[in-house]
């Protein structure tokens, strides 16, 4: 579309035929990017001098984190386990519920158009809500603590896995599904035996990937009182107890790394 606005160049071949050269969009895009960068610096009032001056503070904080307070470790375990529990439970329940919801959203399985459109709309609505906000609302409903965090992760997982799943379902080969109907299977049975085998590896892989992300999300959910290690992180940052913060971050990094490694291993196997 955009390329139509650009001036075109005509090449005349030796045999007299004329080819209209297609212009590259790259220079235009680079120009636009530069322009937007300039505008965003102006709009946000980004002060480079200030940035250089204060960046030192960042390294000061890092320095204070080292060495971390090892004695603090025993107090972190429980919140850390809470965090992991929140993400496992929320991801698991979310991934399970995402399946029927994705079936409702996929327009090749749910033939009634307004239902699939409505479910799709709800899913995208859910995805636009930041998890932190959902967690905050959940704390009003379920009180402070891990339940609120679990609900937030649950909802996010439904939105994320549900979306990717229904897109896969819509791209699935429907021929076997048709054949199973012709064999007297019901819609649900045909789905189970014709479509599930096609989407299962991807479904599991997507769910695991979502879980990886959820562990990281869960760590900050404590900020809004939704339980877990984020609560301690918030407290210690408030008290400027950076050595404790260092301990928490260290443990978090190790945990996230271990979980991602395990999850990645299984995701690769699913391919």
């Amino acid at each position, binding site marked *: 579309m955009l390329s139509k606005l650009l001036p075109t160049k005509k090449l005349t071949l030796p045999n007299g035929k004329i080819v209209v050269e297609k212009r590259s969009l790259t220079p235009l895009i680079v120009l636009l990017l530069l322009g937007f960068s300039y505008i965003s610096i102006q709009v946000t009032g980004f002060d480079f001098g200030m940035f250089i001056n204060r960046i030192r503070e960042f390294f000061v904080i890092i320095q204070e984190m080292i060495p971390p307070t090892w004695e603090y470790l025993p107090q972190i375990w429980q919140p850390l386990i809470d965090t992991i529990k929140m993400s496992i439970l929320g991801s698991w329940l979310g991934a399970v519920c995402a399946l029927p919801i994705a079936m409702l959203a996929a327009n090749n399985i749910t033939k009634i158009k307004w239902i699939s459109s409505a479910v799709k709309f709800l899913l995208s609505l859910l995805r636009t809500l930041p998890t932190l906000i959902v967690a905050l609302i959940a704390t009003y409903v379920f009180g402070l603590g891990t339940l609120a965090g679990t609900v937030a992760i649950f909802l996010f997982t439904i939105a994320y896995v549900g979306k990717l799943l229904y897109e896969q379902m819509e791209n699935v080969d429907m*021929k*076997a599904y*048709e*054949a*199973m109907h012709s*064999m*007297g299977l019901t819609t649900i*049975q045909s789905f189970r*035996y014709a479509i599930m*085998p096609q989407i299962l590896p991807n479904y599991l892989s997507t769910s695991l990937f979502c879980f990886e992300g959820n562990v990281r999300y869960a760590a900050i959910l404590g900020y809004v009182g939704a339980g877990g290690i984020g609560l301690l992180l918030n407290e210690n940052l408030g008290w400027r107890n950076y050595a404790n913060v260092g301990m928490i971050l260290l443990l978090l990094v190790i945990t996230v790394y271990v979980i991602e490694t395990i999850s990645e291993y299984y995701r690769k196997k699913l391919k």
Partner: protein
Amino acid sequence: MIEFKQVQKKYPNGLLALKDIDLEIKQGEFVAVIGRSGAGKSTLLRCINRMHNITSGSLTVDGVEISTLKGKEIRKLRRNIGMIFQSFNLVTRISVLKNVLVGFVPDMPVWRKILGVFTEEEKKQALMAIDQVGILDKAYTRVDQLSGGQQQRVALARTLAQHPKIILADEPVASLDPVTAKQVMDDFRRINQELGMTVVMNIHHVEMALAYAHRVIGLRDGEIVFDGKSEDVTDAVLHRIYKGSPEQQGGSEAHVIEAATN
């Protein structure tokens, strides 16, 4: 027995795909339905197992009026009618055996349906069906590793495991090379002769239709323009069925057959 009486099928967009079809197919017959592309062959086949609904007339299978059947009864009807597709319609990511086992699903208890657990007896039956089409050594191979001809045999085995009385085949050899096509057609003939299953087959390869079917039905624009023994299919008959196709000018049989196979 399959019996069409004054059957009409109109698609929602107003297209009249079948007009006043009167047809009787007895148990054990091998019928080839021929006609140009768009003549209504697939539509005719799909009305028999209620993949499509007829819009008027009466269609009975073994005396049961099928246009009034509902949900569960339709599925019961379909259990007794196997269907074979041009593009095989298998689940390609899983093994041959698993594809064939799907035929048992409707009769399994719920927990086994969900978990996909099959009994030893079911596995034996499925393997027998796979053996009947001569690919027992491929039972545990993934379908996407098989050739087209082998895949069509898997589809045939899947249908056989269902023990249907009728097999509907919609251009089953159209995407196979001539040699493989002949092998698959031989399978159909054996199944028809040895197991007494009715075979109703859409096929655009006229020579093949004449060689394998006892009876040929010629469809043109949703109407039956010929219904008789294969031996009685003459030049004139083919002309009537395929008349007006741009490829067929001379009217000689060779030309007609060529037009039909294109």
